[in-house]
């Protein structure tokens, strides 16, 4: 059984649906990142999981317990970090840790000392006198020093300088790896997510777009560039007109997709047939003598073959994508699909 399981979770604030029918399962020991634009429902999902909010519909279970019935016993195994959470700012760092320690029987004093040393935190300074980065580090210690089985982190990297981000992510990785901790975090910082997360869930408007292991996501996304040449070696126009992106197709393991067709609507002239444009080639861009698109189901051989079949004279290059590129591509594709859906 997965330590975090969400089934058809919906959460509304009045008439606003923050989360809509979300299904999510986070395997034990994994570091899962929730990414998405503002208002996607990341924080709400985490707060529901932490038991701070009750689901409007569906259910969320953590450590096998419905989050509406989380007790002291379960909370001792869960760490929750949210910068917006009220903190005892009148306490010094040391006092905060001393305050938290008795609450958790598994509090590891050695780990606390180690993290304090690593983060170079002044123990005698009040939380209210700390910079944002130092404050986040202090809070991170307070939710990791008891070696939680589940760690829920809301925007742990946001707004920090690279050094702090690096410190926090390193500390997070160490804690997760040493304690076989399952981590679910939300972030806008895709670079850090790529670095720490082994699973990525993209949310948009409360719905899930992508739910996949990071490595798989990176492996199946490629940016393909097709260089078109005249017979004499000069570049040949592709005649790509009015290109519109296709909706994202989900990769393996996806629970939900952007949906929608769009295959064959590329408008590429000179191609054998618009209908033959694969559905996983999305968002082609024409720059005159070059066609670029994203292959969301990249496989080297089949991609090469498909390109050769369509552009026998062209030079085909594939470039790996970063998680940031994938995120942007997916988000924009989804936005386009949504706009198209509204227009139709």
């Amino acid at each position, binding site marked *: 059984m997965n330590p975090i399981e969400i089934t058809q979770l919906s959460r509304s604030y009045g008439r606003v649906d923050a989360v809509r029918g979300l299904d999510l399962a986070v395997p034990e020991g994994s570091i899962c990142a929730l990414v998405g634009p503002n208002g996607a429902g990341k924080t709400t999902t985490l*707060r529901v999981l*932490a*038991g*701070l*909010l009750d689901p409007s519909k569906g259910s969320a279970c953590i450590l096998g317990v419905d989050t509406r019935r989380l*007790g*002291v*016993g379960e*909370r*001792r195994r*869960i760490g*929750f970090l*949210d910068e*917006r*959470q*009220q*903190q*005892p700012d*009148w306490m010094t760092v040391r*006092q905060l840790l001393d*305050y*938290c320690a*008795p*609450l*958790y029987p598994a509090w590891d004093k050695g780990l606390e000392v180690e993290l304090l040393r690593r983060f170079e935190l002044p123990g005698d300074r009040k939380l209210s006198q700390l910079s944002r980065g130092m404050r986040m580090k202090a809070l991170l210690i307070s939710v990791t020093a008891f070696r939680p089985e589940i760690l*829920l982190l809301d925007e742990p990297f946001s707004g920090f300088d690279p050094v702090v981000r690096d410190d926090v992510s390193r500390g997070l990785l160490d804690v997760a790896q040493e304690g076989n901790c399952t981590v679910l975090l939300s972030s806008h910082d895709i670079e850090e997510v790529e670095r720490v997360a082994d699973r990525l869930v993209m949310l948009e408007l409360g719905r899930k777009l992508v739910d996949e292991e990071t490595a798989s996501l990176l492996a199946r996304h490629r940016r393909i560039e097709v260089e078109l040449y005249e017979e004499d070696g000069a570049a040949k126009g592709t005649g790509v007109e009015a290109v519109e992106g296709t909706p994202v197709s989900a990769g393996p393991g996806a629970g939900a997709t952007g949906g929608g067709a769009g295959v064959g609507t590329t408008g590429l002239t000179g191609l054998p047939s618009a209908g033959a444009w694969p559905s996983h080639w999305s968002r082609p861009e024409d720059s005159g003598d070059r066609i670029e698109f994203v292959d969301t189901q990249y496989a080297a051989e089949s991609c090469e073959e498909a390109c050769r079949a369509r552009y026998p004279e062209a030079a085909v290059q594939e470039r790996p994508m970063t998680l940031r590129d994938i995120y942007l591509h997916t988000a924009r594709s989804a936005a386009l699909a949504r706009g198209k859906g509204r227009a139709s």
Partner: protein
Amino acid sequence: MRILLHLTLAELRRLRWWTLGWAVLQVPGLVMLWSGDDTPGSDLSYRFTMLQAQLAFAWAYLLTHEVWVEAAPLGPERFWKPRPISLAQLLGSRALALLTLLWLIPVLVSIPFWCFWGLTVADWGRALLSHATAGAGGFLGGLAVAVLNPWIRRGITRYLASLLCLACVGILAGFFSYARYEWAGYRDSPFNEDGRLSLLVGAWALVVLVSVGLLYLTRKRWLSSLVLGIFGAGACACYLFLPIPAPLLTPSPAAESALGRLEGFQFSRRPGEREYLQVDAQRRDPAGIPLELRADQLLLEQGELRIPVFCYLRTPTQKGGDINDVPNFVPDASALRGAVRVAAPTRVEGWLLAQDPLSSLDPAKPLRLTGVAQLSRYSEDEVILIDLPRSYEGKVLRRQSGPWSISVRQIRGDLFVSASTRPRLASARVPATARLRFMDCTHVQVSRGTHSSGSRSFTALGVVWHVEQVDLRDPRCQTTSKLTDPKVRLRVGHEHGVGAVRVDAVIPGITMLDTLGEGSASK
């Protein structure tokens, strides 16, 4: 339980400055109760008791606000919510913290006083309940306000906070006023009549309003704080360094006229740097109108010892009712060196309070008293008339540091002169333990009995303090014991005390008489 205590201690640590301030604020009221003015149940005691009660209420409210509103337990963003703290533990810790702050701290501060006063178990219960009631009132008030709209809540809280500041200023100023006037020789602090205090309090309220207005208009907290600070410091300095008005004043025309209608009294005005009236009350008022002449102060002025007399007149039709107060009526009282001469009416008993005059007296020379300028009233309906001899001679007490008081009474033909280094202790007052050092005493006479010529009671801390005055004319009350230890410890009791105690210390050449109220006495 361990977690509960852990959370409670953290809460108390968070509120440590509140706790300290709260504890400190308990002390003045207790001290007032212990060594307040001479008259139990007096206006001053009452005012301070009420002031402290109001202060306790306001403080309890603010503490409740701090614990329940500022760090509200409800809401998803609260610190405790994702932590392994149950709601029961949280509420329990908050309740325990409030109980400690509102009830336990005042009780702990009071316990030494209660032990010192010798309260009985029943009185302890009442006092504990009294503290609990004050705390609960503030707590419920705070809780009620906590559920209000945030704007209203904030407004009420600011108002109460200002009120609390005001009360603090008032209580401090009251103490200063009390101390200053007592130091200046007043027997009763004119705290209630100190117009400058009222002015100060009023001005303070005005400045608080201005400060709040500035805060609202400029949104600059430092500016409003600066205004408050400057005014506060200036006001305190002005109040402290302004000279105290002399208690000697010329009588108002109305008072003079009222006195002039009395037969047997002649008034004359004597020119001088300061005008005063001389009382010649050798003859008794034939109409039998109850008359009280009371000398409250001795003041040294231009080498003369003067006794301002407060004259209370009561007509038969106004018996026990309207009293025409003719204040600051000065009889002839003169002669510093060697003798004190007081021209006095025939029916008098009184206190002569002196500070500098006695210190300048030569102990080797006899003290000559020709009268006493006070006729005291033991109860509302009874005026004790004492005939004094024309003169009395005795030795002057040895000089000691601090203010002296001399009391002259004539009881059953004997003249008693009372002296004390603490004038306040010489009257029947205070639920407190008095520690007196009798100089040159040969023996102490202790009187116990239930027969009293007058009693007064007042309530503080939920305990009815009852002070009786024992009439030494009752022979059943008298016992005599040899004083071997010059330090006589007197415990003044209260409603459930063992009875009244009167201690007479006989000094060679002069008799010291002190009435300290009821209770037990030991050597």
